Each structure stands twice: as C-alpha cells, then as structure tokens.
C-alpha cells in the first residue's frame, strides 16, 4: 500500500510537470539568487537545480555529497527520529505530542546548520 501511494506521488509529479506546468519562471528570494550565483548556480528554471542535481555531477565531490550522502542522511535520520516532516512536524504537532515537537525542533536546527554553515562549504567545492 505504501508502495502504491508513493507510486502515486511519482505519477502526480509527472502530471503536474507535463500538464499543469507553471509558465512563469521559478520565483526565488533575490538574496538567495545572489548567493547562489556566487557559486555558479544561475539557471533557476526548475524546482530542482539541474546545475547541482544531474547525472554528470553525480561522481564529483559536490554531487556525491549532495545526491548520495544527502539521501543517506534523509533516510537514516527519518528512521532514527521515528518520523519525518509529515509524521512528526504535521501529524505529531497536530496531535500535540511533545516528542514530535522535540523532533521538529531538531529537524530545524539540523537544517539551519546545513543551509547556513555547511552547505556554503559544499557549494564551494
């Protein structure tokens, strides 16, 4: 059942992109755009930046860290924490569970550390 559900998410991604696409270019905060252009990321056209996440980047240091290690951290962390954004942040908080509030705070701390302090080092590689 989970497999059928995620297959649906995958198909939904295809349908939204093929038939419901946004004709406007992706809008992002100009401060973020300026920061990313400093790392050579200038083609802001899709939801996932192709200049970072592409098959040709997969075997570079940056690609291995972002595509392979990043995915590993998501999977390992989700299981270790006992849930992810939907399980802890959305369902856990909406049922007022303290463990989920703790987990959500830790998600945010991890994300803030990565985005502001570690990711700039990775993007500089």
């Amino acid at each position, binding site marked *: *059942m989970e497999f059928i*559900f995620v*297959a*649906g*998410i*995958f198909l*939904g*991604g295809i*349908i*939204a*992109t093929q038939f*419901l696409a946004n004709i406007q270019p*992706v809008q992002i*905060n100009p*401060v*973020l755009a300026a920061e990313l252009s400093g790392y050579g990321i200038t083609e*802001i056209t899709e*939801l*996932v930046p192709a200049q970072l*996440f*592409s098959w040709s980047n*997969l075997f570079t240091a940056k690609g291995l*860290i972002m*595509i392979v*290690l*990043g*995915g*590993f*951290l*998501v*999977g*390992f*962390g*989700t*299981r*270790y*924490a*006992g*849930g*992810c*954004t939907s*399980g*802890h942040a*959305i369902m*856990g*908080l*909406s049922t007022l569970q*303290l463990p*989920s509030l703790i*987990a959500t705070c*830790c*998600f945010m*701390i*991890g*994300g803030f*550390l*990565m*985005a*502001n302090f570690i*990711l700039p080092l990775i993007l500089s590689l």
Partner: protein
Amino acid sequence: MVKIADATPISKDLEIRMMDTVCVNESQLEHKWYHNLKYLAVGLLFGIIFVKSEVISWYRIQEMFRLQSFHMYGIIGSAVVVGAISVWLIKRFNIKTIYGEQVMFHPKTFNKGQIFGGLIFGLGWAVTGACPGPLFAQIGTGASVILITLLSAIAGTWVYGYLRERLPH
C-alpha cells in the same frame, strides 16, 4: 500513517512500527487488488500538490532555512492546523475508516533518537531540499538523478535497522 498489507509476521513488524509512527493501522482485512487504487489516487493528488505548492522545490527549502520566505512555514503551519481539526473531528464524532474500523491514535514516547535522528534528518533535508515523500515527486518532475538520492535514502533506513541496537535511544 502506516498500513500493513501482509498479516503473517505481524507482531514483530507491528512492534517495530509502533516506535516509528504516530498512527499504526492494525487492520488485517484482506481486499481485492483494485481496493489499492484509492491509495494511488491520494498519492497522485499529493504529488500534484507537492509540485504546484513548490514544497519539493530545493530553493523553497533553502529560503525556509535562511528565513528568506514565509512559504514553507505557511504550508507546514496550515497543514498542522488542518491535521489538528481533522483529528479533533475524528475523535469528536468517532469517525470510522471507509471499512468501518476504529481510527486509533497512539501516543509517542520520547527517546534520544528524536534528537540525534532529527538533527541528521535536518542536515539531509537542507542539502537535498527534500524529505522522503517529495523525493518521489522530484523524480516525477524529471530530475531523474534523484533516483540515486532515493536509493541512498533507502540504504540509510537499512543501515539504521542494522545499527539500531548499538545507537543511543
């Protein structure tokens, strides 16, 4: 929410899943294959919303962690409100599943995994711009290399299972 398809090794499976999820489906009903189409329909809708709301945008995740946009806070915040109202309605009116079963909510217990695992997940979330569900939608949008991220995430869950006994909880 987790649904259990096979009824055979249920006790062990359920025991482990109880630690992981807010809700566990203890249903052991057997259905014909086409009953699964409803999960496909919900997944499809979820995937379309993921893309159209830009939840799966790497840029939106970066903006969230840099406090450069309200976008993700608005989405997660409204989802929490809708979730809370839904749970309240289910409890208040004792709403059953479509097969007439009771909807159960299990309280979660604290363990250190929520801290260590939470921090690890947060690091991965900010670097990939995706949590587990959105990975599937990202692949659907045409970012095919995210398949590797997905396989790596599955490997991560496997390694966690392997190391579980030796990790602090």
